[in-house]
């Protein structure tokens, strides 16, 4: 099958490992990618200053996707996924807004017909590709390793808008980890936020929130942490050392995108998965696996 991908700002401009690993794993399931030309920011960061402007940006990107002939759209970033889902919700409900935005889209020769199906990576792999299919496609199961899942806020809440199994006890990412042969440990801090939403206004508090979560994970003695959102990956991975300093804890927790872990289990070479770009100490896990 073919699927459109809206990468969003963070993946396109710095979180290359997520893009590399997604581009590497999808063909293994006979899925090819359609890129969207001229996409912009999804609107999520603009929502803070003007909600309608955010909805416009989201709908504009969806209109571009429709123009490219896309009916199934993969949105790997949690923030973008929620931004699009919310925009669709308002688009369906608010006639005045729909008219206003349609006029603005027409300026660019665009129109939006609401014929698009949104998927976040985790929902797509879990619900569409299926856990069974992943189990049978895996070549090198990662048996004997223990991970914890951090699905990230914006694919879990609000459950009326996103596609979550259980917003207080989400299991999709855990099921996907276990499909690779590893164990996924449940932990009380699973729903705790990464702090990313505060990075702009209160960076120290943002790092403290990340640090407290990582400190709790450290005490679980697991082999690593699995995320599915570029913002969470930055907070818990790239900023791990800084977060550790703030909470007074030496942290050395390997942090993976789920797609990277899946790629390893599919036998894909580590550089094609962008594993050399992870700032957290992932080497010890890769060594165990190869």
């Amino acid at each position, binding site marked *: 099958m073919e699927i459109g991908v809206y990468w969003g*700002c*963070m993946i*396109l*401009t*710095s979180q*290359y490992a997520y*893009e*590399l690993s997604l*581009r590497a794993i999808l063909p293994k399931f006979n899925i090819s990618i359609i*890129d969207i*030309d*001229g*996409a*912009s*920011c999804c609107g999520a*960061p*603009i*929502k*803070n*200053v*003007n*909600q*309608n*402007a955010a909805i*416009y*940006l989201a709908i*504009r990107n969806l209109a571009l996707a429709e123009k490219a002939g896309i009916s199934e759209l993969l949105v790997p970033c949690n923030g973008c996924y929620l931004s699009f889902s919310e925009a669709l919700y308002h688009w369906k409900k608010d006639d005045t807004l729909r008219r206003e935005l349609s006029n*603005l*889209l027409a*300026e*660019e020769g665009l129109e939006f017909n609401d014929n698009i199906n949104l998927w976040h990576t985790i929902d797509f792999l879990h619900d569409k590709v299926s856990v069974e299919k992943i189990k049978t496609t895996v070549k090198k199961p990662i048996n004997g390793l223990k991970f914890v899942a951090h699905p990230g*806020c*914006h694919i*879990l*809440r*609000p*459950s009326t808008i996103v596609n979550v199994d259980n*917003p*207080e006890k989400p299991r999709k990412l855990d099921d996907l980890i276990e499909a690779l042969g590893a164990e996924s440990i449940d932990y009380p801090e699973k*729903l*705790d*936020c990464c*702090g*990313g*939403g*505060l990075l*702009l*206004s*209160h960076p120290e*508090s*943002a790092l*403290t*929130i990340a640090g407290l979560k990582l400190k709790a994970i450290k005490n679980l003695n697991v082999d690593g942490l699995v995320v599915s959102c570029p913002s969470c990956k930055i907070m818990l991975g790239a900023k791990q050392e800084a977060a550790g300093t703030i909470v007074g804890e030496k942290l050395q927790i390997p942090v993976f995108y789920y797609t990277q872990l899946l790629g390893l289990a599919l036998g894909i070479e580590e550089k094609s998965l*962008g594993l*050399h*770009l*992870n*700032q957290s100490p992932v*080497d010890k896990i890769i060594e165990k696996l190869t």
Partner: protein
Amino acid sequence: MTIVDLMSEAKMNVELRSKVIKKGKYELYNCFQCMRCTSGCTSMKLLELKPHQIVTTVKLGLIDELITSGIIWTCAMCLKCTERCPQDAAPSNLITVLRNLAFDMEANVPEAYLKVVSTVLDVGLIQEEQKVTSRDFEVYDREQLNLPKISKPSETFKNSLLILLTPEEE
């Protein structure tokens, strides 16, 4: 007669309150102060954000005080309050409306948020393409990683975005 807050001598601003309720299509009077939002709030411990108090303060009409105090910018937007609210009064939505109002009134919006807006207007994305460093200190850009070039958005969208970002005249 107007209600005056004796601690700050603040007076209720009915006009702004109606604006907030209208703008967010917000169900303000649904809230019965059960504090489920505050008990699970990500920002409560560190930044003393108490979403249920934001709702009360809006009810009292102390909108100017709220949007200039900085408290609305302590929300991490984790949306737990919205998920858990038994009354569909979603404090995070109210905070978004207050943030939007602060932007329209040029009231104490953190610099970093304004910078994001200007970057999106400028390049279409929240930042320019970055070079990244691997764990063994090699520097990479998209090309070196064999990733396709970023296709930038057309200029037309900026105009539309600017129209939407301009506060409506009363």
